[in-house]
């Protein structure tokens, strides 16, 4: 069979044929994607990955990643796609066993950019001690995608005997927050067209596996964990209050927001409580265990700023916040998107 006259190397960008199931697709997989992830499962060239199951319970999660810009201060879509799914497993009290990755590539997307994204994914996966063992690639027409969309799914081994989730939250629990708010939201916003402004701020995008495992290993009775993503702290707490059926009361003064995030939020009319984070989580533990839990969390760089921000009370399922002036207000989920205001 004659060689294809147009070798892969001549394409610096994705073309429709890269998703077509033929030679170009094979080239993309064997020359770009498999080498990026380097593990035995992918090289078997099978339809799925087969691996040994541990004793006990399995956690299973999936998430899709669409972010603009794809590369932002402190990370890129690849790092997000691995950290986000590993973090979701961690929030179930699980250590990841294997990840999958699905790519939707837009015709014209630079192969070099794809390589950078894959490198970020591999770096984060290695840090989490997990491999990307199966995946899928599709290509869509130019204009039908935003460069690259990624879906990752993960299975993990649950390391906690007790159920972790909103149903386990009880009055008397302390609410711990692992660090300051809003770095991801502001870092991404600062890089967008139309609202670009200069800041040294980087996204907080990070793996949360180590501090969570350390909490469990230390024997802290963890009732609920939730990583803070798009809707920020406010939305995460409102969801937990509603799902668990308790009133959550937080203290405004105990919630950390760095000067750069505060400044940018004031300028743009955004509330840090609703800004996106990619490396922060809340933990619900019995109040008596809160000091020890904070101590454990503070021994990791990613949660060095951990502190207790509030308590769970009996009462209507809602979230209230005590302000620094002794007044109190409702914390509500945001409606729609946070939009920069007029004046």
């Amino acid at each position, binding site marked *: 069979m004659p060689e294809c006259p147009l070798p892969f190397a001549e394409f610096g960008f994705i073309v429709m044929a890269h998703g077509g199931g033929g030679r170009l697709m094979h080239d993309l997989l064997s020359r770009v994607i498999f080498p990026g992830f380097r593990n035995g499962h992918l090289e078997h060239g099978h339809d799925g990955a087969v691996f040994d199951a541990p004793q006990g319970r399995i956690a299973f999660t999936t998430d899709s990643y669409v972010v603009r810009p794809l590369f932002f201060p402190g990370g890129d879509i690849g790092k997000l796609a691995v950290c986000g799914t590993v973090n979701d497993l961690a929030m179930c009290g699980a250590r990841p066993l294997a990840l999958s990755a699905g790519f939707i590539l837009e015709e014209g997307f630079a192969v070099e950019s794809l390589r950078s994204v894959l490198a970020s994914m591999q770096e984060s996966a290695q840090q989490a001690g997990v491999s990307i063992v199966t995946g899928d690639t599709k290509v869509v027409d130019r204009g039908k995608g935003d460069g690259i969309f990624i879906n990752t799914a993960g299975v993990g081994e649950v390391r906690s005997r007790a159920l972790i989730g909103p149903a386990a939250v009880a009055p008397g629990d302390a609410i711990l927050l692992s660090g300051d708010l809003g770095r991801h939201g502001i870092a991404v916003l600062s890089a967008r067209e139309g609202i670009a402004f200069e800041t040294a701020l980087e996204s907080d995008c990070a793996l949360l596996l180590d501090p969570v495992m350390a909490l469990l290993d230390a024997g802290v009775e963890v009732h609920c964990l939730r990583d803070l993503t798009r809707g920020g702290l406010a939305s995460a707490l409102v969801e937990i209050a509603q799902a668990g059926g308790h009133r959550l009361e937080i203290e405004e003064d105990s919630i950390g927001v760095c000067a750069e995030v505060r400044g940018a939020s004031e300028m743009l009319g955004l509330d840090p409580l609703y800004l996106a984070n990619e490396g922060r989580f809340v933990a619900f533990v019995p109040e008596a265990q809160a000091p020890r839990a904070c101590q454990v969390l503070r021994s990791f760089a990613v949660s060095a700023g951990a502190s207790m921000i509030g308590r769970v009370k009996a009462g209507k399922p809602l979230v209230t916040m005590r302000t620094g002036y002794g007044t*109190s207000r409702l914390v509500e989920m945001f409606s729609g998107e946070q939009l920069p*205001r007029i004046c």
Partner: protein
Amino acid sequence: MKFLDEYRNPGAVRRLAAAIRKLVTRRWTLMEVCGGQTHAIVRFGIDALLPPEVELIHGPGCPVCVTPLASIDKAIAIATRPDVIFASFGDMLRVPGSQRDLLAVKASGGDVRVVYSPMDALAMARANPNRQVVFFAVGFETTAPANAMAAFEARRQRVGNFSLLVSQVLVAPAMRSILVSPGNRVQGFLAAGHVCTVMGLDAYRPLVEEFRVPVVATGFEPVDLLRGIYRCLELLESGRAEIANEYSRSVREEGNAAAQALLAEVFEVSDRAWRGMGDIAASGLRLREPYWDWDAERRFELEHIATSECKDCISGLVLRGERKPESCPEFSLRCTPEHPLGATMVSSEGACSAYYRYRRNGIDA
């Protein structure tokens, strides 16, 4: 942010609240004019720190709320055109028009973009010479200078594919319309500090003299607000109708002369309709004749737009301070930020939206 912390200092807030309690001998009703102030008052619970004799009512100073339905519908009609990039401040995108909002236009293929400054929209026009870039120039005297600058620069640089859909409003005529309203309860005003920064204090003098109401230029942080409230109550208690400046770190008596000159160059005063408040004489700005080529209403042929407003919405009464959001039978039931019946529920600075976010479920200080 150190500068801001000084004006959020809990000790200073407590001392001012105590001083106000000591000062007040009878019932007073004050209006904060600006939506940004309403938002801060409800968010920080400032009204809960005041003695029961003092009532704050929330004024019409939310540009998103008062932009008339006809302007929103025009914006939607223009943004729907395939040759147009429609640029707007973010919070205008969710304001419901008669049929839909700008976000819905974007979702169905319109090129609607959020900008933080009108100058970014002008740059967008230069970068897209084959498209028409239209900027939605809404707001009070606070946004007017930057919007004027965009028109001025578009004319100077001869950027032919840029235009402004203007819906600028002025604060003082709206305050007058509240004072002459038969249901008026306002005895003193907290004037919006940023408007005063641009325009100075002279615009309020006729109101103070004619209606004998004190007007205090007031800022937006808790300490600023309480200082403004204290000063206004002090003037009321001693029977003085005067203008005072409690935002002197930003406001000068004469305002910003350069901004005023630019406004006078680009805009002229016109009658204008306010959403919820109706037509108010000499309460708006429109482009002067040399700038007509950059006027989106003149550039695009718009068919007559018939508007229809929800008849159950009391936002007009809320904007005039005659009703509080919770007294509306639709509040938080049929009317929510996801499904707003009227403008005061849409904008984060609208009084209904602020109450919905911070005050539902009987949660009070």
